[in-house]
């Protein structure tokens, strides 16, 4: 079951969902609209290697916007901190964003129960597109879980700004180097 916008608002007020800052006017019928923050991260590696910490550079989106060329991939942040110990959040593009050919995540839409922080957006442009600080770029939905809840204690907890991949911290699985 998916929460309605009215229920999201109620659960935020009751402290069972974190959306901060929160503006009830941004509740849609089934989701909450997320704004783009200012910070970006761009990788500097010629070839990314999930086993190595990737060199990267931090940038800021200026007031006049930041132009993405087709094929560009950058990490960005939601302006809001989001999370819940009770409902499973999922990230989606707003359809207005998708209609510009802009992905807001790269097939990683599901957030773990217990995570709280700024969500890292994985922006991938298929058309030339200008992005603006504060633009409503994405939306988050909340889903009712079934079963005993064990909360997230992972490496991206309390994310402050866009977080690079930390796959290089993974423990190798037995049977594979």
């Amino acid at each position, binding site marked *: *079951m998916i929460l309605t916008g009215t229920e999201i608002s109620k659960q935020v007020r009751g402290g069972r969902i974190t959306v901060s800052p929160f503006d009830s006017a941004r509740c849609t019928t089934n989701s909450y609209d997320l704004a783009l923050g200012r910070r970006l991260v761009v*990788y500097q*590696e*010629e*070839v*990314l*290697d*999930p*086993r190595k910490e*990737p060199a990267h550079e931090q940038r800021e989106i200026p007031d006049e916007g930041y132009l993405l060329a087709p*094929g560009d*991939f950058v*990490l960005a942040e939601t302006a809001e901190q989001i999370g819940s110990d009770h409902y*499973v959040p999922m990230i989606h593009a707003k359809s207005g964003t998708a209609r510009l050919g802009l992905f807001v*995540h*790269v*097939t*990683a*839409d*599901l957030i*773990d*129960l*217990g995570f709280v922080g700024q969500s*890292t957006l*994985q922006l*991938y442009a298929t058309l030339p597109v200008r992005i603006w600080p504060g633009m409503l770029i994405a939306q988050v939905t909340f*889903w*009712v*879980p*079934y*079963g*005993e*809840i*064990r*909360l*997230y204690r992972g490496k*991206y907890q309390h994310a402050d700004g866009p*977080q*690079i*991949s*930390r*796959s290089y911290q*993974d423990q190798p*699985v037995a*049977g*594979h*180097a």
Partner: protein
Amino acid sequence: MILTGAFIDEEVRAGRIVIDPYRAEALNPNSYNYRLGEHLKQYDEHSGQFVEVHLPDDGYVLSPHRMYLGHTSEVIGSSVYAMSLIGRSSMGRLGLFLQVSADLGHTTSCHRWTLEIVATRPIRVYPGMVVGQVSFWRNRGELAPTPALYATFNDPSESRIGAPQ
């Protein structure tokens, strides 16, 4: 409703979810981490066909903006729950798509899933690395399974659209 990790674990043990091989440490709060299998197919524009690649242990570099077919190491399925198979955020943060907007796994399917892999930047991938997550969802209503096609395949399998019946 989406199953929690603890409940996925219970259902695997009860036989209502199949994840093989299964590692309890790969459970997340509301999903399970699957791994990349060792076979890949890449599209060859000259022949118009997919060519097989065996992933070496020291990894294989994917070219950006090119489509590859891969597969999960694990056989994954359920005759009770519907599934959604996505990339994990540590791969999304590296710009690696694990599927091309086809995340839904039908109830009753059980096989190694074909992954539609697209890199947005050059990236090295390794056989057996944890690349994505599968979540399980409760159904409402009577189950009337459609005949399985892709769900009978365990290797990276190209589209059968337009193929002879």
